[in-house]
């Protein structure tokens, strides 16, 4: 488990860009944090690394937003509106894991069917308004050696 302190939105984005440099198709990230913690900014940072300069909107209503550029496909999920893991399966959710980089907000809902290897990122508010604590946990052998 690794922890990083970010003093600003910009720093969080920079961290996200650096994090994204180690990602590829088949990587799954579970992204947790309270409202306003900076999950969306984090995802924006990831997209920026891959040259997708977009201000993104939350996938709370769409369930999943897709971003494609060159050979990179990013799927940004928000599972808040799903009832249970079966609903995720019914919409063919499992098929996304190998299609690109998947980022799940409220990913705990599908914990049972996540791939054996995935990364969990939690963003917590820090001591000041701008400060954040980023906690990175990796699960599975695939990520054992990696540090972010």
């Amino acid at each position: 488990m690794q922890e990083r302190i970010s003093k600003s939105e910009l720093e969080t984005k920079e961290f996200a860009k650096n994090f994204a440099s180690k990602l590829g198709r088949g990587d799954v990230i579970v992204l947790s944090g309270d409202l306003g913690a900076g999950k969306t900014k984090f995802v924006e940072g990831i997209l920026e690394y891959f040259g997708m300069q977009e201000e993104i909107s939350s996938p709370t209503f769409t369930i999943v937003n897709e971003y494609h550029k060159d050979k990179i496909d990013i799927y940004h999920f928000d599972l808040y509106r799903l009832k249970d893991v079966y609903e995720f399966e019914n919409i063919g959710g499992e098929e996304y894991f190998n299609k690109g980089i998947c980022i799940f907000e409220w990913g705990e809902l599908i914990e049972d069917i996540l791939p054996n290897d995935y990364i969990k990122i939690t963003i917590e508010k820090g001591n000041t308004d701008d400060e954040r604590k980023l906690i990175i946990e990796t699960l599975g052998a695939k990520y054992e050696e990696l540090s972010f």
Partner: protein
Amino acid sequence: MKILALDTSGKMCSIAVAEDGKILDQISTISEKEHSQTLMPNIQKLLKSLNLQLDDIDLLSCSRGPGSFTGIRVGMATVKALSDAKNIPIAGVDTLKAIAYSVIIKKGRKECKILSLIDARNENVYFAVYRIHNGNISLYKNAEIRNVSDIVEYINFEDPLYIAGDIYMEKLEPLFKAKFSKQYAQGRKTDEYEYVTDLPPLAEAIAMCAQDKYDVGDYR
């Protein structure tokens, strides 16, 4: 009678037309495009190349799983739509059975057992065992989903065993080799087994299975 069979349960999209138990022709593709994009154009292409219309088809068939959830749905939705539009009956075929039948197409009908395998992610595999006896195929062991390390437990048969399914090379081969080298070292007769490669596209086997079903009235 003519059968139009399709398989979209895996990475390959395959379509076959069979007449009176023989495959007339088939199209199979693996592409970056989704099955939902390639299936209909390929059906059209195949029928056209055989100078056939949908009205000439007496039975439709597709894989009904296990396999890719969305893939299977694409196949089933297509078959149902064609069936509704043209009033053609449908027979669904178990993917694991189709895989076993593919082995028959390649190897013939001698006495044997066939272990059919399909990837189920996260070190899990769908599998079933079929038996060929007196030229007929029958289910020997019901389909199950298990961890790869559990599969080797099921191999203790007297009949020669064929194994089919891409996932074998990826996940199971070292486990099988380990089990049998142990048996050999212990001086016991090792079971015969052979992993079958280069199987025909699944739609061909689906057409054959559908023909069998039609012959016994098992269709809707």
